[in-house]
Structure formats: structure tokens, C-alpha cells
């Protein structure tokens, strides 16, 4: 076992960690907000059709095709190249982030929908009766209950987004996977390098699992007893 080589690789791969984390967090934020919008428009019939189609398309196709469609595909339209968004859409970073967020929104909106369905109608009515406005009911009653319900499924989504960010390496970005790929082309020691990268991702997803478990216990003291 070549320890010096391994630790060198490990340190080099860690320099890709900020980009991996940045993409994970920002795509979860963007996707989460879009997921909320998708659920709010479900109230109307047209909105419901739009949201269902969106979810169907984004969940039915591979993320890789979505990334390529945005990165390579959008550039084939003259009006995109002429638009104010072009400085963003020609950067692989923004294209990758956009694809990840759009994809995450489809999955998160379904998780959120399950959570929203679990909110008791009585709780909403009680809020309305006591004079809360629509938005206040959403913020103080519906969302806290729905989010708590959705947390276990959502922690899986966080892990799958963390893993999904690896795909941006296919559009030249140097995240942990991208750096690993570059190192392999330079040294041809695929097994060691990819295993190093795998260890980094594995540690991150174990952290997410632990964190979600802690949050779940913290938010539901009635189920697990009050935290000490």
C-alpha cells in the first residue's frame, strides 16, 4: 500500500469538496423553493396539471440528459445566446446547478406533497378560525407539520442530491469526482483514486444520515422524549 500516494490523492480530492458542497446546498435550496411553488399551484386545476407534467418529465428522464440538454442543448437556440441570461447559461457551473435544482424540485415536491397531505384538516381550520391569514397558517401550522412528517424521506433526497452532483464532472466541472477523473487520466491508478473519492462521499452521506436522525429526534420530542 502506497500511503504517500494515497494521502496526496486524498488531499487533492478534498480541494473539490467546496464545489460539491456548494452545488448540493444551492440545488437543494433552489429545488426546495421550486417544490414549494409546485405544491402551491396544485390548488388550481391548471396548476395541478402543470405540476404533474413537470414531475412526470423530470422524474421519468435521467439527470444526465437534463444536464446535457441545458448545457449543450440551450445553446442551439439563437434567442438564448442573445438573451441576458447567456453569460450564465454558457458557464458549466450555472447549467449544472440549474439542472440539479430543477431535478431536485420534482422529487422534493412529491415528498412535500406527502407531508402536506398528512397535515390534519382540523389544525388548518383552527388556525383560520382564530383569525390567521392564509400565509400565516401556511407558515405557522401547515409547513412545520408537513416538514416534520417529510423529514425521513427528505434526508434520502439530500443524500441522492449529494451523489447527483458527481454528474457535473461530465460537463468539465472539477468537483470531487471531476478531480478524481482527472487524476486517473494522469496516473492510471483508477482503483486507488476512485476508492479515495468514494470514501469522501461515504463520509458525507453518513454525516447527513446522522444529522437527519438528530433533527428528527429534536423536532419530535413527543415521540422520542425531550432532548437532554
Amino acid at each position: 500500500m502506497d500511503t504517500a500516494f494515497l494521502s496526496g490523492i486524498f488531499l487533492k480530492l478534498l480541494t473539490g469538496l467546496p464545489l460539491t458542497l456548494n452545488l448540493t446546498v444551492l440545488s437543494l435550496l433552489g429545488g426546495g423553493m421550486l417544490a414549494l411553488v409546485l405544491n402551491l399551484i396544485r390548488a388550481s386545476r391548471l396548476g395541478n396539471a402543470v405540476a404533474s407534467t413537470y414531475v412526470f418529465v423530470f422524474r421519468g428522464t435521467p439527470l444526465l440528459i437534463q444536464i446535457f440538454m441545458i448545457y449543450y442543448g440551450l445553446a442551439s437556440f439563437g434567442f438564448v445566446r442573445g438573451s441576458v441570461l447567456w453569460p450564465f447559461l454558457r458557464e458549466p457551473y450555472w447549467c449544472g446547478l440549474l439542472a440539479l435544482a430543477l431535478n431536485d424540485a420534482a422529487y422534493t415536491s412529491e415528498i412535500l406533497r406527502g407531508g402536506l397531505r398528512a397535515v390534519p384538516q382540523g389544525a388548518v381550520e383552527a388556525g383560520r378560525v382564530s383569525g390567521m391569514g392564509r400565509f400565516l397558517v401556511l407558515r405557522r401550522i401547515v409547513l412545520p407539520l408537513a416538514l416534520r412528517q417529510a423529514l425521513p424521506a427528505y434526508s434520502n433526497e439530500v443524500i441522492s442530491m449529494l451523489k447527483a452532483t458527481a454528474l457535473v464532472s461530465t460537463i468539465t466541472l472539477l468537483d470531487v469526482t471531476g478531480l478524481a477523473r482527472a487524476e486517473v487520466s494522469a496516473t492510471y491508478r483508477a482503483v486507488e483514486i476512485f476508492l479515495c473519492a468514494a470514501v469522501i462521499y461515504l463520509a458525507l452521506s453518513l454525516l447527513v444520515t446522522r444529522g437527519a436522525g438528530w433533527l428528527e429526534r429534536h423536532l419530535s420530542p413527543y415521540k422520542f422524549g425531550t432532548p437532554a
Partner: protein
Amino acid sequence: MGFDWALLGFGPEGWGLVLARAGGMTLVVSICAFLLGLVLGTLCAWARIAGSRWVQRLAIGYTVVLRGVPDLLVIYLFYFGGRQVVTAVGTALGFEGPFDISGFVAGVLAIGLISGAAQSEVLRGAYQSVPTGTIEAGRVVGMGRLTLFRRVIAPQALTTAIPAMGNQWQSVIKETALVSVTGLVETMRQVSIAAGSTQEHFMFYLAGAVIFLIITSLSDIVFRIAERRSLRGHQQGHA
């Protein structure tokens, strides 16, 4: 949008036939990987239900690792790593290089292994949803292990497992797009080639997305029928 639709047709200029063949390859890779996953998942679920402590730990380790590592990385590991291992073994045995491993084999192994980890969780959950009373009843009337599994456990576990297995199958289909990085000509790889040579990027990636949507929607229908059938036996009280 001035698309040249003839490019997607089956004429001499069209990519239709090639794309259809690539769609077929996507299906073949998906089926092989899903079946491999089913075998691994079953073994792993069995290990966790009935294995000794060490076998259980091994099975848990397998699921934790495979669910925490990006699929793309696993495919890279099998494809490039596989080539490295084959080369090392080949050279040690005195053969002349260069050595290579096919993208198909590496892809099926990698996705099968990933899917096996997820399927083992589904199968374990399904087994645990079978009421213990029915298993004991089966044992009491003198059923052997195999009969017990075939007549009591499997019919009941299937109703729980089928919807989740349907989801597993859908993610296997989508994961096969990643095998394109090995150069295997499945749907994703084929639309990239077509997009590159015609410069109609958006149109061909859209076509690729439609091929995937067709495959995922059709399999959704099949799994729904299967689910209904598995429930039908339940309502009548006998299989």
C-alpha cells in the same frame, strides 16, 4: 424552433432506426442490471434476516457503502478499475496487452450492485410485513421451508414489495444513462453522437428524453397491472 424533423425519421438521412436500437440497448442493460440486483438483493436480505452476526454486518456494510457513493463513481470504478485489475492479472499471467473490459459488463455489474443494495432493503421490509402468525401456522401444518416460502411468505410479501420494486426498476433505467461514459452505445450515448454530428443538440437530447419517458411510462403500466394482480389474490383470500 426550426427543427429538421426528418433527422429523427427512419429515412436515409434519419437517425430513427439507430435511436430505436439504442433504446433497445438501454432496455437490455436495465433488465440485466435489475436481475443481478434482484439476486444480490435477495441474498443480502436473506443474510440480514437469517444470517449469523458477521454475515449480517457484511450485508449492512454492503448496503451502507453502495447507497452512500455516487453511481457514476461506482461505474468509473468498475470500468477503469476493472481495466486496471484485468491488465495486472493478464500481465502477471504472461499475456500481451492491451487489456480491456467491456462497458456493458462494467455497467451491468456496477448498476446491479447499486440496485442490489436498494432492493435488499425493499425485500427485507416486505418480509418483515408478513404477519409472523401465518408463518407459524404454515410451520405447524408441516410445510417445509420451500413450500412455506412459496405458499405463505412470497404471496404476502409481494403485495408490499411490488410498488417499491417498481420504483427500483425506474431508477435502474435512469442509471443506465450513466453507462454512456464507458462508450457503450445506449440511448444517452447515441443521442450525444447524433447531437454532435448534426449540431442539433437540443432536438436530439429531447429525443433521448422522450425515449426514456416512453420506457419509464410503459414499465409503470406493467408494474401497476402486476400490483393489481397481486392484490386480487389477497382479496379472494387464496392465491
